[in-house]
């Protein structure tokens, strides 16, 4: 393949991104070489500003352009309700649902001992401090319903048991548009356990 030192340098950088192999890196480098200058400038600018213009909210650890973030600073949100999520992307998903009017707490992952992730790698102490400061009535544990997410929710529930705050776990069961026939028996079982009255 014909190449230049600049192209090779770009391809080598791209290759370090997750999910990008040698071929994809070369393909992207060729694409960028033939792309209009405006796209390159835009991309370079966006990459250059990424870190300096991104701030982690000092209260909920959401990604934002300011601290406290827009959610934490919004006086119309219910400060007595905290929804605990694993990552900023999960926060965005809950926000998108439009069903939640409280505040958030982003843990920064889950308890995953096999990956060396213990409680000290997560923002659990910070959550306990927020609750100890008072004014919180309920904590919703919205970690994912898999082994790590469930274990993390139980760990936090143990930690906060004496705080007097109400603890709840997001419901889990059949997905919308799902098919009972294809669901595993645990999901079907949980859907029945978490059933609700229909009116």
């Amino acid at each position, binding site marked *: 393949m014909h190449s230049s030192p600049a192209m090779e340098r770009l391809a080598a950088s791209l290759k370090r991104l997750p999910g990008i192999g040698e071929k994809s890196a070369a393909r992207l480098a060729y694409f960028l070489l033939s792309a209009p200058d405006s796209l390159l400038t835009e991309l370079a600018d966006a990459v250059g500003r990424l870190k300096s213009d991104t701030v982690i909210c000092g209260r909920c650890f959401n990604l934002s352009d300011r601290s406290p973030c827009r959610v934490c600073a919004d006086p119309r949100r219910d400060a007595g309700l905290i929804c605990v999520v694993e990552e900023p992307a999960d926060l965005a998903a809950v926000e998108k649902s439009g069903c939640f009017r409280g505040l958030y707490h982003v843990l920064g992952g889950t308890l995953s001992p096999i990956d060396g992730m213990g409680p000290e790698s997560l923002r659990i102490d910070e959550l306990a401090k927020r609750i100890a400061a008072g004014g919180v009535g309920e904590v919703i544990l919205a970690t994912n319903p898999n*082994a790590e997410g469930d274990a993390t929710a139980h760990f936090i529930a143990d930690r906060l048991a004496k705080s007097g705050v109400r603890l709840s776990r997001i419901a889990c069961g059949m997905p919308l548009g799902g098919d009972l026939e294809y669901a595993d028996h645990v999901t079907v079982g949980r859907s029945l356990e978490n059933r609700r009255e229909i009116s």
Partner: protein
Amino acid sequence: MSRLVSEALLLRAVDFGESDRIVHLLTPETGRLTAIAKGARRSVKRFPGTLDLFNHLRVSVSRRRGGRAMAFLERAVLISPFLELRAVPTRYALASYLLELMDRMAPEGGAGPDTQRLFSFALSSLSALEGMAPDLRIRLLFELRALDALGLRPELRHCVRCGAEPGVRAGFYVADGGVVCSSCTVRLEGVLPVHLGTLRVLQQALDYDVDRLERLVPGAQAVVEARNLLFRFQRFHVGLELRSERFLDESLGEPVA
């Protein structure tokens, strides 16, 4: 292509690329097996809620014959998720530790009665742990059994040097993986002192059924000795520090002598 349809235990799952997952499985036929589940994070129909830690599965895996390329996980059906392991942090910590031990140490592509035995141990230990509140004692008993299932069984009955009964001044010689009698002890350096009571309770732990291990109640001194002995035995013969060990140690606390 060859196809393996088997029971399996999911030891570890790592996201790969945009939609795939790489899974480490323990199967009774092959020991440890690494496979790629294509589209696992998108296809709820092919892998509905199945590729999760501790899950006991029925899997269908295909491999290119003789090839070194990774096997493909074609289908996985959930048999049991051992949900109770997630509900108590000490259980989760110990079960994760046992899984990591097997993930690092289980033979790959191995066959025969040993992989069958290892698989049975893995299932019965997870199932037993579901009903327990693990403490340091439970951890040591299960760790010993896991090492045994992995082919690392310490010799506790006879001197590893001369075959004699250990006697009162016996010790444990980590490098040889077993007890040494009082006369062999004097010729060796770095022998760990160990009481006969400790050796006896560890031997019982090797003989008991896994679901009855909880009934063994060694005294405080035996727990401390066993902790020291197993820690060094594990480090020497496994040869690496497990990532999950720190969380386990923190969850269980240190021994009180």
